């Protein structure tokens, strides 16, 4: 994996290997939160920041603590604890120094802990054996890709408010179909770059 340039990984993780549309990560909050564009955007930003921080921390923990000690199998516990701690810390820092952003994000910050995209990115970077620089590119790209998808979905859902949707499909059903269509559209990007 060493030869792939970080820039390629960055672009690929936004478009061709989008976290939601091709790896299905972070679906829970994706469906629940994507009703309004501003909140989706706020959540997307928060996810991107947390992704960037946790991937670096997890990378360093894995490379310099778990591997030398031969404790690779403990990675799930270590990763989830470091993610929870990062989110908690970020919450305190934001509350102290950037209260506006803190109140804008509100409930979404703690919810990020259980967003599978965060843990997923950390696990992917271990499995694909990225270097530190590649991991940073991958995590920021994934965060931006996630934001792009959720904001686009929120925009489409806004337009759908007055559409006559069959009763059984309302809510999650139609959201999944829109996501499916978006995923099909994103397949069109797959000619640009490809990672795995």
């Amino acid at each position, binding site marked *: 994996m060493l030869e792939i340039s970080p820039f390629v990984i960055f672009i690929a993780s936004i478009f061709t290997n989008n976290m939601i549309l091709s790896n*299905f990560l972070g679906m*829970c909050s994706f469906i629940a939160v994507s009703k309004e564009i501003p909140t989706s955007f706020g959540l997307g930003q928060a996810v991107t920041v947390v992704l960037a921080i946790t991937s670096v921390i997890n990378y360093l923990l894995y490379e310099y603590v778990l591997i030398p000690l031969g404790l690779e199998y403990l990675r799930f516990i270590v990763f989830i604890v470091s993610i929870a701690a990062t989110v908690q810390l970020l919450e305190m820092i934001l509350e102290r120094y950037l209260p506006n952003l803190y109140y804008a994000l509100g409930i979404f910050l703690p919810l990020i802990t*259980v967003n599978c995209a965060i843990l*997923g990115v950390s696990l*992917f970077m271990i499995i694909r054996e990225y270097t530190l620089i590649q991991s940073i590119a991958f995590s920021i790209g994934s965060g931006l890709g996630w934001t792009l998808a959720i904001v686009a979905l929120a925009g489409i859902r806004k337009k759908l408010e007055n559409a006559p949707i*069959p009763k059984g499909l309302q809510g999650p059903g139609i959201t999944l179909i829109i996501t499916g269509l978006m995923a099909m559209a994103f397949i069109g990007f797959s000619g640009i770059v490809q990672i795995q």
Partner: protein
Amino acid sequence: MAKERVSKIFKQGILNENPVLVQILGICSALAVTNLMMNSLIMGLALTFVTGISSFTISVIRQFTPKHVRMIIQVLIIAAYVIIVDIFLKAYMPEMSKALGPYVGLIITNCIIMGRAEAYAQVNPPIPSLWDGIAAGLGYTFVLLAIAFVRELMGFGTIFGMPVLGEWWTPWTIMVMPPAAFFLLAILIWVLNSKREGEVTK
């Protein structure tokens, strides 16, 4: 424990309150591993094991866990069992472990387990919690198998890797790709919702 109570828990977990279709929980992995039936079966069984046994554990220690740290304790318990599953898969089914990739680890953040822990195991004795967790896990497994059946049949012309459709079948590549997973899950939810509505109006 009364028999009808167990069967009621199972009916709820698998049908009436199916975690994937009704509560829309845990769909990340439900969509990702369903391109092959074998993957879905293993994933479903792994999740059933983790949900059941972690519900049991959480229920056993529920009286000793302080309220404000219970979340982190639950996550740690779940993570411990997921590690067991991961090591087991790596040792006995290395191919499967590769195919499932990060999704085994992602069982930790699967909302079904936390959901059952919060909604049921926190307030019920251990044995019913165990059944409840297993029922929710089986509900998840059935949905996975249903989606995987269509995707594998139409995408590869096989079931559990055995060719069933013969030479004349042209595989639908779209079925193996992500969009089909979204569409099929939406259709399943649609069918179930319409059926439930019919029952309510009757």
